[in-house]
């Protein structure tokens, strides 16, 4: 156990074991998969209509976004900063949910063979879900952002204030820890990934703040946020491919390493 916790020697064994045990999840997930398919037939027509509308709206937005992206790239080039390369997205289906009340993780139906790697960010259509922590041949394990051991470096979208978002084990609650009472964080603030960890791509929505309280006698604010991704419901997820080399070192040169100072750094410009 010490070897597993402190070192990476057992990764090979873990990976082999998850390859062996993931099929069990496929079996136990069958009732849910079947319900999904049946419901799918019932709602087919309705779903089709609403998806057409959604497709139209999104493609209109995509046209606009494309123009903005081009403009952004030109401006970045003018500023001399590195260009943001958006990685390819790999789609995977959830084949199992780990039934442990103290941990939050999922099993995905894609693994090593499909190019999944450890540390890969996982998103759904609404926001960040988590990251891959174990990769088997045909399956992988995803640690969700709500797991008590997961920490996501985020920015407050409104003012670029940097902080660390901790999971709590509660599916509907995340916490910003070590934020001083002078910090400008309000209810309804959107938290997005900062990308400073070099693991999650920057700018993806993660959570919305729903309560900010100062408890008497406590040095830090108690800030709670609700995850945006449908952590318990989404079945089809996107895995973002590794960001192109060059993005990370450049960022590390220009930005002080916020991740190492436990989020107690001052507010951004």
């Amino acid at each position, binding site marked *: 156990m010490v070897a597993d916790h402190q070192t990476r020697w057992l990764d090979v064994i873990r990976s082999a074991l998850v390859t062996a045990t993931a099929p069990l999840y496929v079996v136990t997930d069958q009732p849910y998969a079947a319900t999904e398919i049946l419901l799918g037939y019932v709602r087919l027509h309705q779903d089709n209509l609403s998806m057409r509308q959604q497709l139209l709206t999104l493609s209109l937005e995509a046209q606009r976004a494309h123009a903005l992206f081009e403009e952004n790239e030109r401006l970045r080039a003018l500023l001399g900063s590195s260009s943001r390369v958006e990685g390819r997205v790999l789609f995977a289906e959830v084949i199992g949910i780990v039934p*442990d009340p103290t941990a939050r993780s999922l099993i995905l139906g894609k693994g090593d063979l499909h190019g999944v790697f450890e540390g890969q960010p996982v998103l759904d259509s609404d926001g960040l879900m988590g990251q891959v922590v174990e990769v088997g041949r045909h399956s992988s394990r995803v640690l969700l952002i709500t797991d008590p051991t997961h920490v996501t470096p985020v920015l407050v979208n409104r003012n670029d204030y940097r902080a660390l978002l901790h999971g709590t084990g509660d599916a509907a609650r995340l916490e910003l820890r070590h934020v001083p009472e002078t910090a400008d964080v309000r209810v309804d603030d959107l938290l997005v990934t900062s990308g400073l960890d070099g693991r999650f791509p920057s700018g993806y929505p993660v959570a919305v703040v729903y309560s900010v309280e100062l408890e008497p006698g406590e040095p830090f604010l108690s800030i709670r946020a609700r995850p945006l991704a449908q952590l318990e419901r989404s079945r089809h997820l996107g895995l973002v491919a590794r960001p192109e080399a060059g993005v990370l070192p450049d960022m590390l040169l220009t930005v002080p390493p916020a991740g190492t100072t436990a989020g107690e750094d001052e507010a951004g410009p």
Partner: protein
Amino acid sequence: MKFPDTLVIWSTLLLALLLTAVRLPVGTPEILAWLRPEWGAIVLLYWVMAVPQQVGMLTAWVLGLLVDSLTGTLLGLHALGFVLVAFVGLSMYERLRMYSLFQQALIVFVAIALARLLGFWADVLTRGATWTPMVLLPALTSALLWPPAFTLLRALRRRFRIA
């Protein structure tokens, strides 16, 4: 035709693993997740008690590793717990066979509670878990499940003439 004993035993252990992986629909109350019995430990304890010369610490360890992989816990956490359960079973299987189902269930509770506490302790060290009496709930539900599980597994053992 007689099936090999190992095959039958591992089939039941596989079934226990499957039950471990079953999840409840989204939206069921949290408490139900805590009530989940330690299926692996129940089945393991039965076989240790019934055929201690065939099922022992090694089986317990392998089964525990599989459960660790299944639940994503620290590799060895369930393995150690299950080895402990098997040890309890091995050290008193002769007495266990004499006990009534109720007395056996009591031992099941103690053995699984010990394993859970061991696992919880590892969780505290590695993930900073906080104590809640819920940690012991699976031991309780496992003990309650012991009589039916015992009856079923004994019927199976007699059917396949494992001794």
